[in-house]
C-alpha cells in the first residue's frame, strides 16, 4: 500500500540537535541568512543526545605555552596513529575558534582563573592542561546557549520527528530525508538540497552504557543503508568510570574524567591502586583505553567488588574541595546512596563513544554530493581511541564546518525529486513494525543486544566471542522481523524502540565484523588472543559497506601519514 506523506521543502536538512547539528544550523545561517533550514530531531531540540551531557569539557589550545602541534600529537598518540591525520589536524586547529565563538558570539561563560582568563584543567593523555569547562556540567552551558540562538536564526524545527532514511533521486543525487512524526505517527518527506547527518553514535547498545537514550546509531545506519562507507567501527570507547547503580537506569552514567585528572585513585576490592601494574608512570591519568582495560581485567580476574566493579576514590582531597570542584558528580553519587566527597564509589567501564563512523573529508563531505556527516556519526578523527575533551570539540568543530560547507555550496545543488520507490520502501519499514503480528517485544530484544555486546564484544574480545556476537546479531536481525508493538502510532514508545533497534543491530554488525578482522590490540580494540599492537600489519583502517542490505564489503587501507609518522 502506498503511504501518504507531507512534504516540507528546504535548502538544508539537519538531522540531530546536539552540538554538531546546532552548530551546523547557526553557521549556515550566519553565512547565508536567506537559507531555509530544517532541523530534524527525534528527541527534544537541544536537550536530547550527548553534547548536553558533557561534563568535564572541551580541549582547545588557548595558552601560549601550549601549541596546536602538541594537541595534534596528543590526539594521534591517544588514537594510536589510526587517525585520519587531516581530520585530526582540522580538529585541533578549529577548536580554539569554536571556543571563541561559544564565548564571544553565543555567550557561554566558561570557568576562569584568578586573572579572569579561561581556566583549563587536566584531562588524561594530555601534554598540557587544556580542557575548557564550566564546572563539571559543561554541556548544559554549551547546549543551552546554542539552543537559545535558534530563537534568533529561526530554523524550521521538527521536534519529536524521527529521520528514517536518506532518500536519493533516481539519478542518485541527494533528495532528502524520510521521517516519522513521533507525536502524530504521520510520515513526512523533507525535500532538501543538502543534508547534514549529525545524530551521534550508538554506544547505548551495551548493558552498561553512558549515553542518552537517543544514541542508537541512527545516522550511521542511515548512511549504511544509503551505501556509504564507514570506518573504524571496531573502535568503541569504554569510559573507565561509569556509575554502578544496580538495576537503575543510572547505571553506566559517567563520573567525569576530571576526577582522575584531579588525582582520584582507582582501587580494586582489596584497596590496591592497581594502575601501578598497568601504567606505573601515568597511573590513573593514563588514557581511557588503558584504564578501561585495566579495570575490566581486575574485575574479570576476581579482584573487583561484589557488584562487579572497582572503586574510584577522591575523598583524600577533602570533602569541601571535592564538593566545590565536582558538585554535579557528588550530587549524582548521593542520589544513589553513596558520596564521592567522603568515600569510594563503585564504578565499572561503561560504553561511551564510537570512534568509528562515516568516511568524510575535512568539510564533512561524503561520497554522495550534497550529503554531509558531522560529529560522532563520522569516523577517522580520533583513530583507535578518543581523548577526553576531544568529543565535544569534534561535534562543534565539524558541525560548524558542515554548516559553512553547505551554505557555500548550496547554489550548486538543486531540489531533486525523490525516487518514490525508495521513499515508500522507507515508510514501509515502519508500517511493517506497526502491523507486525509476531511475538517479539522490542524491549526484550534490546536487552539481548545489550547482553551479547557486553559479553562478547566488550572491553576485551577474542575470536570465539566475536563470532558468538555476530551469530547473536544475525539472529536478532531475523527476530526483529517478528516484532509486535501497540498499534496506536501517537507517541508510540515501543515502535520507536523497535526502529532504534533496527539501526543498532545494523551498526553492531559493522562493529563485530570489523573487530573480527583486526587481529591485534590497538586503542579501544583489545583482544585476549592478540594482546599486542601489530604496527607492521595493522597501521591500516578497516572500511565497511553494505552491499544490498544483507551482504557487506570490508577492506583495509593503510593509514596515510600526511603530517606525522608514528614514533
Amino acid at each position, binding site marked *: 500500500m502506498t503511504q501518504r506523506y507531507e512534504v516540507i521543502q528546504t535548502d538544508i536538512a539537519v538531522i540531530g540537535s546536539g552540538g554538531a547539528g546546532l552548530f551546523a544550523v547557526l553557521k549556515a545561517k550566519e553565512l547565508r541568512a536567506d537559507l531555509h533550514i530544517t532541523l530534524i530531531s527525534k*528527541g*527534544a531540540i537541544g*536537550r*536530547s*543526545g550527548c553534547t*548536553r*551531557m558533557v561534563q568535564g569539557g572541551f580541549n582547545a589550545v588557548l595558552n601560549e605555552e601550549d601549541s596546536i602541534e602538541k594537541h595534534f600529537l596528543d590526539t594521534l598518540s591517544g588514537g594510536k596513529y589510526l587517525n585520519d591525520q587531516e581530520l585530526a589536524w582540522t580538529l585541533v586547529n578549529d577548536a580554539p575558534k569554536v571556543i*571563541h565563538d561559544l*564565548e*564571544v*558570539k*553565543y*555567550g557561554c*561563560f566558561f*570557568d*576562569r582563573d*584568578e*586573572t*579572569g*582568563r*579561561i581556566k583549563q584543567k587536566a584531562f588524561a593523555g594530555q601534554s598540557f592542561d587544556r580542557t575548557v569547562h*564550566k*564546572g563539571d*556540567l559543561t*554541556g*548544559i*552551558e554549551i547546549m*543551552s*546557549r546554542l*539552543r*537559545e*540562538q535558534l*530563537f*534568533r536564526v529561526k530554523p524550521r524545527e521538527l521536534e519529536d520527528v524521527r529521520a528514517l532514511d536518506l532518500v536519493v533521486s533516481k539519478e542518485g543525487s541527494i533528495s532528502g530525508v524520510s521521517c516519522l512524526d513521533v*507525536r502524530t505517527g504521520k510520515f513526512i518527506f523533507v525535500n532538501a538540497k543538502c543534508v547534514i547527518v549529525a545524530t551521534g553514535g550508538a554506544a547505548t547498545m551495551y548493558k552498561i552504557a553512558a549515553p*542518552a*537514550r*537517543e544514541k542508537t546509531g541512527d545516522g550511521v545506519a542511515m548512511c549504511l543503508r544509503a551505501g556509504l562507507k564507514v570506518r573504524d567501527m571496531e573502535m568503541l570507547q569504554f569510559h573507565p568510570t561509569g556509575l554502578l*547503580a*544496580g*538495576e*537503575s*537506569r*543510572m547505571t553506566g*552514567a559517567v563520573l567525569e574524567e576530571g576526577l582522575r585528572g584531579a588525582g582520584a585513585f582507582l582501587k580494586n576490592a582489596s584497596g590496591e591502586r592497581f594502575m601501578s601494574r598497568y601504567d606505573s608512570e601515568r597511573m590513573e591519568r593514563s588514557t581511557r583505553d588503558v584504564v578501561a582495560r585495566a579495570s575490566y581485567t581486575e574485575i574479570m580476574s576476581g579482584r573487583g567488588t561484589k557488584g562487579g566493579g572497582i572503586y574510584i576514590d577522591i575523598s583524600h582531597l577533602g570533602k569541601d574541595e571535592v564538593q566545590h570542584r565536582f558538585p554535579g558528580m557528588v*550530587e*549524582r553519587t548521593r*542520589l*544513589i*546512596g553513596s558520596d564521592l566527597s567522603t568515600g569510594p564509589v563503585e564504578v565499572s567501564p561503561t560504553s561511551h563513544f564510537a570512534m568509528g563512523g562515516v568516511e568524510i573529508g575535512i568539510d564533512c563531505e561524503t561520497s554522495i554530493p550534497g550529503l554531509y556527516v558531522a560529529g560522532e556519526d563520522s569516523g577517522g578523527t580520533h583513530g583507535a581511541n578518543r581523548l577526553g575533551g576531544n568529543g565535544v570539540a569534534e561535534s562543534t568543530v565539524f558541525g560548524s564546518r558542515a554548516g559553512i560547507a553547505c551554505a557555500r555550496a548550496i547554489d550548486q545543488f538543486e531540489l531533486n525529486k525523490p525516487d518514490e520507490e525508495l521513499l515508500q520502501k522507507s515508510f514501509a519499514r515502519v508500517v511493517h513494525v506497526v502491523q507486525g503480528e509476531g511475538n517479539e*517485544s522490542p*524491549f526484550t530484544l534490546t536487552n539481548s543486544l545489550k547482553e551479547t555486546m557486553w559479553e562478547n564484544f566488550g572491553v576485551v574480545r577474542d575470536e570465539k566471542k566475536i563470532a558468538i556476537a555476530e551469530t547473536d546479531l544475525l539472529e536478532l536481525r531475523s527476530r526483529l522481523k517478528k516484532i509486535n*508493538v*501497540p498499534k*496506536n502510532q*501517537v*507517541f*508510540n*514508545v*515501543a515502535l520507536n524502540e523497535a526502529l532504534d533497534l533496527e539501526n543498532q543491530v545494523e551498526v553492531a554488525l559493522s562493529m563485530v565484523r570489523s573487530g573480527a578482522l583486526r587481529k591485534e590490540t590497538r586503542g579501544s580494540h583489545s583482544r585476549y588472543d592478540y594482546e599486542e599492537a601489530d604496527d607492521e600489519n595493522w597501521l591500516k583502517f578497516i572500511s565497511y559497506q553494505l552491499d544490498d542490505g544483507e551482504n557487506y564489503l570490508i577492506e583495509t587501507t593503510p593509514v596515510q601519514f600526511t603530517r606525522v609518522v608514528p614514533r
Partner: protein
Amino acid sequence: MSMEKIEVIIKRSEDDTQREFKVRRFSPMTILDVLLAIGRSQDATLAYRFSCRVGMCGTCLVRVNGKPVLACQTPVRDQRNLKIEAAAGFETIKDLVFDPKPFWAQWAKVIPYFVPKAGSSEIAVIPHESDERELIDPHVNCIQCGACFTACSVSGGGNDFLGPAALNRAMVLMADSRDGAGEERREIVEGESGVWRCHQALACSVVCPKGLDPAASIRKIRNRKVFKRKK
C-alpha cells in the same frame, strides 16, 4: 511479598482514566525506573519521555503525588503509593508526554539569546570573584525543564506572565557585561508581563530540581541590582 511492591497510579490520556500498576521495588530506584519497569514489561502503550537520565536534559518532568519533579532525579525509597501524572499547565500529547510549547513561547519573548556588544571580538577577562559573577553564578545551569513554570501560580495558569525560568535567564543576560541587548530586554521584563506580575510565592524556587532560585532573580531585576552594577 506484596509489601515489596509499589502501587503506582498513572493518569492515562486516552480515555482520561487512571491505571494502577504494581512495581517491584529495588534500590537505588528512581521514578524513571518505575516508568521504565511499567512501560517495558507491563504496558507498552504507556507514553513517557526521558533522555539523559542524569538530570542534565530536563525532559522527564512529571508530577508525582502532585509535585513537579524530574523522574530521573527523584529517588523512590520507602513510598508505597505513587501517583504519576503529566506536568500541569501544558497540553498533553499522550499520557505523561506534554508539549512544552507555552514554556518556550515565554522563554522566546525575553530575547533569551546572547547579543554580543558591538565591537567585542575577544574572550572577555572576568575574574570569578567579580561582582558580576557573584550576581550571576547562583543562577546558571538552568536545564529548561519547566518545573518552575508549571509550579508557578501565575504562569502555570496559562496567562501571559513570562514566568520564572525566562526571567531567570533574562536576569543572567542583563547582569552579563558582555551582552548588548540590556535596555531592550529590560523593557520587556519590566513590562506588563514581567517581574511585577510575580507574587513571590516562591513555588518556583522550591521545585527547581537544580536548586536554583528564580524568585531571587526576579527580585534582582525588580530592585535593579543588575543595572546598578553596570554603571
